[in-house]
């Protein structure tokens, strides 16, 4: 059974209030993702990869098409009744530094999903967090630091740890390692692979590095001008 199914997804950006210009960022994207597998998406800059990733989480409202999450259509459900969606699908952004609030300590950043979704009580919180960072091999010493005091690899692991707090079934990774060096990239990708094996998480892995995508994915699609043009 597929965990995520996307049918004919389109996104058209319009901008300007006087002169309207439109950019078709997604132009009929269709695919389905099997539980526990990884779909790699390759594509050059500006081909619409990030737009697709954001649309899947409804961070961007798609113009048309359908997104089915575990068979349920989530395309047009209003946001306030989508509370369960974050617990199913999550996203890792390209730049770990900018995806963490610079004024929030690491501990609080990881605790955030727990607090938002009231996943555990205040007493359990600390244990829970220690457990989470254990899964991504992070030293507890770092918990009380600020993001700028951590290296890129550490930060990306923090991001993964906080996402894991929600126990998502599917993770969209939008170029999660393009800002990191080779050894850290290896570390992060290995962690992702391990998670897939141990927890059966499905991935959509976006990158423009063919080697990396090939290493990560079961199935690869190439995106060009908002379309998935080639399946490998």
């Amino acid at each position, binding site marked *: 059974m597929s965990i995520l199914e996307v049918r004919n997804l389109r996104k058209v950006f319009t*901008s300007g209030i006087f002169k309207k210009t439109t950019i078709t960022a997604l132009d009929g994207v269709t695919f389905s993702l099997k539980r526990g597998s990884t779909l790699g998406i390759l594509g050059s800059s500006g081909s619409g990869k990030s737009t697709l990733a954001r649309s899947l989480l409804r961070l961007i409202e798609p113009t048309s098409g359908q997104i089915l999450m575990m068979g349920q259509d989530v395309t047009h459900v209003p946001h306030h009744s989508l509370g369960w969606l974050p617990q199913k699908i999550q996203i890792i952004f390209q730049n770990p530094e900018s995806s963490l609030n610079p004024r929030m300590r690491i501990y609080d950043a990881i605790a955030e999903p727990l607090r938002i979704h009231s996943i555990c009580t205040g007493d359990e919180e600390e244990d829970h967090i220690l457990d989470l960072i254990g899964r991504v091999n992070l030293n507890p010493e770092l918990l009380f630091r600020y993001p700028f005091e951590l290296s890129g690899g550490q930060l990306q692991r923090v991001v993964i740890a906080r996402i894991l707090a929600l126990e998502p079934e599917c993770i969209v990774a939008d170029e999660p390692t393009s800002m990191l060096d080779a050894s850290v990239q290896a570390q992060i990708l290995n962690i992702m692979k391990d998670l897939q094996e141990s927890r059966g998480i499905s991935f959509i892995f976006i990158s423009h590095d063919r080697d990396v995508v090939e290493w990560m994915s079961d199935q690869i699609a190439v995106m060009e001008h908002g379309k998935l043009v080639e399946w490998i």
Partner: protein
Amino acid sequence: MYAYIVKRLALVFLVMSGVTVITFGAMYLAPGDPAEIIATARYGQDLTPGQIEWVRSTEHLDDPVYIQYLTWLNHIIRLDLGRSLITFDDVAEEIAVRFPTTLTLALASLILSLCIGIPVGIISALHKNAFLDYTTTSIALLGVSMPNFWLGLILIWFFSLYLRVLPSFGSGGISHLILPAVTLGASMAAITMRLMRSSMLDVMGQEYIATARAKGLDKRTVLFRHALKNALLPVITFSGLQLGFLLGGTVIVETIFAWPGIGKLLVDSIYARDYSMIQGCVLLIGLLFAITNLAIDLLYASIDPRIRYDRHD
């Protein structure tokens, strides 16, 4: 860009009607019987009830407020600001006489505050947490904490009376302008200085400053060509707001220095319930404020190329 300016000007009208409506409503709520206050201002304390009623009916003060407002609006549309309810002078003429002096003072103090605030802010930022920083900061804070009614008189005392170098009151040449401009500019200069300091510190930490230094540019070029323009942006916004305040909020300084400006005219008119004069002043001040803000926004865009007003999202 032109479309943007047109749109902004259209909004100016919206804002102006807002301001005048609120002023009208506010004056309606203000305490006291306007007819009686106007009659007292016109005819002196020895009033008869007949005079009060006469004022009430001839000036249509017994009409509902919205009718009064619409009547006024009707005149405004025909560019007629009306005449003062107290002295019967033409409002437009009176404002035309007073306004240039206010503008002179406002601009002078703004320029003064920038001339002091910006360099001192820079110096203070360049010597962060050093003696010079602490001294300039303390002096700046001194500037903020000195009420201008106090500072103004002290300045007159020192410069006019003790040193005998500057005139103590009135408007006229540059020499008349100095003391009131300093009085008004002091606290503004202090805030400008603090703002400049923090924004300069922000900018000096940016990578492009490192690039400029890596190019081997000398200190002055780095500072003035690369850092200053960026650091000025918040200061410009603040100055725009300040100019608006200066155009209407200078009554105390105008009183102390016998400076014939619009601030005192407005306040006196408010006390005398000289509605048409109040509306005239408010209209002008509001208009200038709106135009200043537009000008500031455009200036902002001309300094910072990233800002585009004709595109959204």
